[in-house]
């Protein structure tokens, strides 16, 4: 077996040194009645070449964004992934290191996390960012729990335009502490601010808005911040950091916590994970943050060095009283994002935003020209928008898939109210030809 170096001679020598006859003698503490008396019923081991053939067969049964033109979004986007990222994260010193608990032997990882924290804080306009949470959904859940821990209030107001998948995750996480979720409606595709004023009050720990929201529309974050703050609640903003080259930093619009899905920052679509939960907050909350933090310090000789810090928040020290249960996070995805942001840089991230929104607006115009198809919400949007179709969106999407177009997300499954709608995302990678072909195919499908 190629991963097991012990030869029978090695094993003999080791058993002799230990003073036992066989490995069985080392397993005596396992109750005999619970020993497995048969081999595990698993498929037979495969040689590498056979296994590769088998895996390719499975992979070939998926409509990936290389063989299909991808207009799917809803929290995962087909943005450009610069080539160096995969090469660099495959370096074994990054890939096969554990959490940097011995800082002297982990300065590489620690420096990349410090760079990551800096970039995320800068993009979101917040004071501090942590080293990552699992994904956008769990990051929002952690933010909600933090708000409750900060002000002790028991209600969370979520607008109806927050990604429903994130809402499901929040529901799971608030079950333990017993927080009550209240919905602020968004009938016109954006949060109804008057309704928000009625829902948000003295019991509200936090108001949660997403911008651009689930339907793609831009929210008035500044107004939401005023409503939250007037009630003494925190404002949590769900934001996609890849848009923040051109969209205003939520921190400058009054957000107290910014969370979001960082997948667009160079992390593969990968059927939904591993992704990157972004978490950034104001300085006031630094000792309440979930997850790991890296800080700069000096070594014995006064040289600059980096280490995990403020660990008394964390489970390995605080146990049942920790700010979160998170241990393993998504450090390598954070490294992908760091390399992505270093490559795109000051100018590139702006270009990504400009191209995405320009192409999205072109696509919206072209698609809404198709007879019977309309833009569902007459609101400013960014790179994603909601179409109302004259025919079943599932059937239309299935038909377009036959032409290798992933037309967008039929909303019926996640959002019953909009069962006649299709959510379409357009990134900088989509070309005019692809968009035109989509519009033509849509025209035929709904005719």
């Amino acid at each position, binding site marked *: 077996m190629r991963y097991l170096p012990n030869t029978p001679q090695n094993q003999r020598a080791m058993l002799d040194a230990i003073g036992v006859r066989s490995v069985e003698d080392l397993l005596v503490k396992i*109750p005999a009645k619970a020993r497995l008396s048969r081999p595990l019923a698993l498929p037979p081991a495969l040689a590498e070449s056979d296994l590769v053939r088998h895996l*390719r067969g499975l992979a070939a049964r998926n409509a990936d964004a290389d063989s299909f033109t991808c207009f799917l979004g809803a929290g995962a986007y087909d943005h450009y992934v*610069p080539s160096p990222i995969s090469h*660099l994260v495959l370096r074994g010193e990054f890939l096969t290191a554990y*959490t940097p608990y011995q800082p*002297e032997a982990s300065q590489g990882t620690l420096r990349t996390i410090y760079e990551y924290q800096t970039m995320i804080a800068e993009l979101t306009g917040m004071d501090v960012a942590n080293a990552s949470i699992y994904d956008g959904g769990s990051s929002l859940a952690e933010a909600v729990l933090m708000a409750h821990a900060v002000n002790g209030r028991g209600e969370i107001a979520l607008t109806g335009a927050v990604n429903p998948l994130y809402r499901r995750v929040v529901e799971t996480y608030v079950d333990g502490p017993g927080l009550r979720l209240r919905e602020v409606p968004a009938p016109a595709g954006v949060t109804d601010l008057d309704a928000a004023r009625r829902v948000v009050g003295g019991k509200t720990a936090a108001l949660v808005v997403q911008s651009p929201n689930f339907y793609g529309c831009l929210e008035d974050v500044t107004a939401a911040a005023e409503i939250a703050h007037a009630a003494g609640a925190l404002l949590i903003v769900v934001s996609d950091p890849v848009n923040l080259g051109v969209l205003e930093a939520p921190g400058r619009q009054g957000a107290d916590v910014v969370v979001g899905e960082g997948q667009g920052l160079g992390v593969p679509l990968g059927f939904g994970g591993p992704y990157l939960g972004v978490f950034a907050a104001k300085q006031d909350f630094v000792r309440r943050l979930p997850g790991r933090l890296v800080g700069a310090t000096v070594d014995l000789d006064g040289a*600059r060095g980096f280490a995990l810090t403020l660990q008394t928040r964390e489970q390995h020290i605080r146990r*049942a009283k920790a700010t979160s249960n998170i241990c393993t996070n998504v450090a390598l995805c954070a490294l992908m994002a760091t390399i992505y942001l*270093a490559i795109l840089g000051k100018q590139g991230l702006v270009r990504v935003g400009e191209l995405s929104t320009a192409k999205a607006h072109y696509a919206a115009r072209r698609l809404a020209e198709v007879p019977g198809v309309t833009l569902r919400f007459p609101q400013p949007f960014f790179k994603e928008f909601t179409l109302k179709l004259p025919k079943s969106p599932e059937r239309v999407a299935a038909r377009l898939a036959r032409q290798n177009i992933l037309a967008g997300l039929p909303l019926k499954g996640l959002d019953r109210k909009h069962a006649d709608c299709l959510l379409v995302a357009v990134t900088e990678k989509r070309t005019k030809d692809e968009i035109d072909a989509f519009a033509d195919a849509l025209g035929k499908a709904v005719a």
Partner: protein
Amino acid sequence: MPYDNQPAYDRLVFELSSPGRMAFSLPESDVPVEPALAAVPEKYRRRQPAALPEVSELDVVRHYSRLSQMNYGIDTHFYPLGSCTMKYNPRINEDAARLAGFARLHPLAAEALSQGALQLMHELAGMLAEIAGMDAVSLQPAAGAQGELAGVLMIRAYHEARGEKRTKVLIPDSAHGTNPASTALAGYEVIEVKSDAEGQVDLGDLERHLAADVAAFMITVPNTLGNFEPRVTEIAELCHARGAQVYMDGANLNAILGLTRPGDLGFDVCHFNLHKTFTTPHGGGGPGAGPVGVKAHLEPFLPVPVVARREQTYVLDWKRPQSIGKLQAFWGNFGMHVRAYTYIRTMGADGLRAVSENAVLNANYVMKRLEQHYDVAAPGPCMHECVLSARKQKKLGVTAMDIAKRLLDLGFYAPSTYFPLIVEEALMIEPTETESKETLDAFCEAMIRIAREAETAPEAIHQAPVTTPVRRLDQTRAAREPNLRWRGQR
């Protein structure tokens, strides 16, 4: 040290920045929307450009290559970090995860368009269920801690569905910190159960706490001292008799593959750490994956959606009214599922059993070689890891931390230190099955050398490490004046 011929590198990417440099390649706009932001009203636009670096592609590649060289990884160093199972991470796993059909698949592609991915998940869940003797497995949790949260929430939902109100969960004092943290997050009061001198559950203490308000007992098998709890089946029976569920933290599954199964030991729930036992790389702290397995009576409570098979097709089943809900926005860390699946298909049943046998052999060998030099926390035989105590050395002024730092200079990563909390000056050593006898011997010799140095030259050990990119860091200063982002000055 592999890179000791290089001068120290002390840059952050921001310090390489030069206005106007670029490393990206983006197309010109081919759509007639001008200016590009025409349709985005002014009030939504960013006013102050984000201060990101401006560097060339070579700057990026060289910078991160140099930073990587400031790390120890399994690829470069023996990494005996107990409880973390730092075994070889096969390269074929990485190739598999990067196949376009997996890496470039959108999570919301219709079921009919993601049959290969759903099949892989369904089969992996089935294989994990067989390995653990469980009836069903959810792959959704993103890491061990999230698997724990899911497991405890399912236990809670189970009791509630039966109309029982139980408010406490018992956890041994030797447990990993995530156990109490996840349990508290799930809304339970955590009660600590004592361990005896050998690190085993104090049955008297357990019985005393096992009242009618106890929802579950959560225990790590083998325990965090590396020992198999010999009375584990009795413990499970005792808990069940009192109406409590038993949860197994499966972080140490690498010790028992094909030898025994959590389900056969009497556990109702257990989680897996694919980033330990099943060779997905740790990546400097993550991502991992923490699937959770349950017995049939807990199946209705599994997170949604469940990947199910209907005739010849695979579907995401959302219609599960008793489910605890979702843990992640999508279906779990699929990239890790591909790697773990690849690993299990590489090993097969005999291979996995050989994994555990060799992991146990290696750990016992290391323990045997070191037992005259260090105190052993609990008598052997141990399972896949052994816990030593540097209590003898501490009397000479050399702590577990000092020993860890000295090992770095001798070319080894350090064991886990100060865990479990119940062992004074703990050094938790997990060699794993992928290390050779030669490597283990070299490590043991380094440990023996340090034990001698503790007697003859303890001050020198306090200086360690001296070969690493930095020396010991001022942690107090890091915490007292938190500097968590670069602000343009050193």
